[in-house]
C-alpha cells in the first residue's frame, strides 16, 4: 500500500505543476492565492490539528509576516526570499509570545485572547504611520529571484508551490518527530501525557511558533503578490475565513490544507454569479461539512480510498 500512496502523491504533484498552463493571468493569480492560503491552512493543521489549540488571530501573524517582509525589502533592500524569511521569523516571535496566555486559557478563552492579539496588531500597524504608511498603506515590489523580477503570476506560482511543498514536507516530518507526537499526545489527554513526562508549556509554545512562522511566510508571499498592503486587509473576517478554510479542507492532512486553500480562493470566484444566494451556499456548505465531514473535504477522498481497499487487519 506504500506504493499506492507514493503514486498518489506523485500524481498530485504532476497536476499541481501542469495546472497553470493555458489559464491566463486571471487563472495564474487565483492559483497563486490558492498556494498562499494553503500555507496558512498548513499552519492551522499544526496548531489545531496536532496541538488542539484554537486561534482566531491568524490574520495578526499574516499581517506581521506581510509587513515584516515588505518593510525589510523596501527600507533595508533585502532580497525577496530573505524578506519572506524575516516575515516568517517576526511572526514566529510573536507566535511564541501569544503562546504564553495559551498556557493558561483554553477553548473559548484562548480564541478570545488570540482575537485580541489580531486586533492589537491591526491597530498598531494602522497607527504606526511612519513605519507602515497607516491608512495610506504600503506598495510592495514584485517578487524577484537572483536579480530577475517575476513579472507574471505564472512564474510566481511555481515559487509559491515550492514553498508550500517545503513547508508541507516540514509539517510531515514534524508530525512524525518526538515533539510532534508529544504534542498530539497532549491534545488527546494532557493529564496522561504530562504523567508520562511530557512538558506541556514548551510543546504549546513550539506549536504556536511553528504555526505563526508558516502564517508569516504566507503573509510575506501575499504582500508581494498583491503589490499593496493596507491594515484593512487583515481584519477579523480574514482570521475567521482562515479557520473556515482549514476546517473545510481538513485539519489533519496536508492535502486537506491544499483543498482548504483552493476552497477559500475559488469559492468567491465560482459563486460570484449567485450574488446574494452565495451566502446561503456558504452557510449550507459549512454546516454540512462540520456535521458530516468533520475530517474536512479530504476525508471524502480518504473514504473513497478505503472503500476500494480491502479492510485493514486489526492491530
Amino acid at each position, binding site marked *: 500500500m506504500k506504493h499506492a500512496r507514493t503514486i498518489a502523491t506523485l500524481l498530485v504533484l504532476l497536476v499541481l505543476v501542469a495546472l497553470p498552463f493555458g489559464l491566463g*493571468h*486571471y487563472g495564474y493569480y487565483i492559483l497563486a492565492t490558492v498556494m498562499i492560503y494553503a500555507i496558512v491552512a498548513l499552519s492551522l493543521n499544526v496548531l489545531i490539528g496536532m496541538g488542539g489549540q*484554537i486561534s482566531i488571530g491568524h490574520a495578526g501573524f499574516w499581517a506581521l509576516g506581510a509587513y515584516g517582509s515588505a518593510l525589510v525589502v523596501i527600507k533595508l533592500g533585502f532580497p525577496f526570499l530573505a524578506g519572506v524569511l524575516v516575515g516568517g521569523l517576526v511572526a514566529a516571535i510573536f507566535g511564541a509570545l501569544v503562546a504564553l496566555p495559551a498556557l493558561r486559557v483554553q477553548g473559548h478563552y484562548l480564541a478570545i485572547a488570540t482575537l485580541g492579539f489580531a486586533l492589537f496588531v491591526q491597530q498598531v500597524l494602522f497607527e504606526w504611520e511612519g513605519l507602515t504608511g497607516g491608512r*495610506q498603506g504600503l506598495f510592495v515590489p514584485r517578487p524577484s529571484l537572483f536579480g530577475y523580477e517575476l513579472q507574471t503570476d505564472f512564474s510566481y506560482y511555481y515559487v509559491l508551490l515550492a514553498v508550500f511543498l517545503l513547508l508541507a514536507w516540514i509539517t510531515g516530518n514534524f508530525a512524525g518527530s518526538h515533539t510532534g507526537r508529544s504534542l498530539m499526545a497532549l491534545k488527546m489527554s494532557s493529564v496522561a501525557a504530562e504523567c508520562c513526562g511530557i512538558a506541556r508549556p514548551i510543546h504549546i509554545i513550539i506549536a504556536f511558533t511553528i504555526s505563526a512562522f508558516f502564517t508569516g511566510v504566507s503573509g510575506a508571499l501575499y504582500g508581494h503578490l498583491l*503589490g499593496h498592503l493596507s491594515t484593512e486587509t487583515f481584519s477579523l473576517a480574514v482570521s475567521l475565513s482562515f479557520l473556515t478554510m482549514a476546517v473545510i479542507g481538513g485539519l489533519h492532512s496536508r492535502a486537506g490544507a491544499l483543498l482548504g486553500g483552493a476552497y477559500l480562493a475559488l469559492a*468567491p470566484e465560482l459563486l460570484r454569479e449567485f450574488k446574494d444566494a452565495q*451566502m446561503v451556499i456558504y452557510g449550507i456548505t459549512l454546516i454540512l461539512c462540520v456535521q458530516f465531514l*468533520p475530517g474536512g473535504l479530504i476525508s471524502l477522498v480518504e473514504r473513497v480510498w478505503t472503500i476500494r481497499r480491502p479492510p485493514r487487519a486489526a492491530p
Partner: protein
Amino acid sequence: MNGPMRALLAVTALATAAFLFPGATRAADPGVTKDKITLGSFLPLQSGLAAGATQMREGADAYFKSLNEAGGVNGRKIEWIVENDSYNPQQTAAVVKKLVDRDGVFAIVSTLGTVTNLAVLPFLAQRGVPIVNPAGGHLLLNKPKDKNVFGILPLSSEIGESMADYAVGKLGAKRVAIFYQNDQFGKDQRDGAVEALKKHNLQAVGEATYVPSDVDVSAQVVSLRQTDPDAVILGIIPKHAALFVKEAQRLGWKPKIIGHNTVADPVVLDLAGPEALEGVYVNLMTAVDGMDTPAVKKANEILAKHYPKTKPGYYPYLGMAGAMIIVEGIKRAGDDLTRAKLIAGLESLGRHETGLVPPIEWSASYHGGPKSFGYAQWQGGKLKVLQGW
C-alpha cells in the same frame, strides 16, 4: 477535537458565512466592437460600504442605460460589467484580472474604496487600462500620477482648507474650532483647515475628535463650547453631525457650523430634525437633490426612470458623474477608439462641467479632482445653495 472546541468551530464557521462574498452582473466580450464598448467596475457591493456602492452603481448604470436608449456614443452602446470585491483587496486584484483578461474591458469607471483601488493601480498602469473616477481618499487617486488614472474627488485636506477659508473669508469668523473624526478621513480635513487658518494668521481655538463607534459626543461639544468659537468646522460623517447639532441645540449654543459634504446627506435631517440643523453650512463636492439646475434635474429624471427606489444624493451623483465623463472622453476619442485615444480625449476636456460635481480641469499634466467647491445652507429642512462652483 473536544466538544466545546467543535461547537466553537461551528459557530465561527457560521459567523464567517456572514462575512463572505456575493456578486454582481457579468458578461464576456472584447473591449470595442462595431456596435459595443465594454467597460468594467469593481464595487464593494457586500461590506460596510455596500449601501453607497449600490447607489454608486445605480447612478452610473442609469446613465449608461439612458445613453444606450438614445443610441449610445458614436454609434456604439455601452456595456458596463460590475464586479463585487467585498472591499477585500485580494478579491479586487482577482476581479480586475478577470475584467481585463477574461472579459477584455476597454476601461474601468466609477469604482469605490481607497484600499481596493490602490491595490490594482500597479496592474492597471502596467496594462495601460484607463480608470476614471476611482473614488477614495489617497494622493494617487485624487491627484493621480499615472497616465491612465483620472480622479474626480478632491483630497480631504483641500475640503478642510476650503471650509476654513469659507468660515473666515465668507462668514467672518475670527475664532474657529474643529471637530473631526479620528482617522485619516477626519485628520486630513483638520490638517487642511489648520493650514488654511495659518494663511489668515489664525489658529484653531479648539479641537475635539470622535471615533465612528461613539454614540455620544456631548463631552466634546461642551469642551469646544468652552473655547468660545464663532465657527465650528465639522470633518465628520452624518450620524455624528446629527449628534453634534442636537447637543449644541440642547445647550442653546449657536456657533456658525460648517460641515463636510456628508452633512448634506438627508440622513442628517432625519436624525437631527430641521430645527437643530437650521443655519448649518455645508461644503458641496457633489450636487444635492434640491439644486435647481438643468443638469441635476436631468440626473434625477434618469435615476427615477431606471432606479425609482434610489434617492438622488452623493453616491448616485458621483457614479453618474464618472459615467458622463468617460462617455465624453469616448466621444472625443472618435470612431477609431483606442485606449491611448481615450486618454487623449480625457486630457483634452479642459474645464469640464457635468453639473453633478464641481468642474474638473484635466490636462496632460493634471488628472486630479476639482479645486473649487460649492456651499449650501440648511434652511427649514431644505438645503439652499448659497454658492455654486
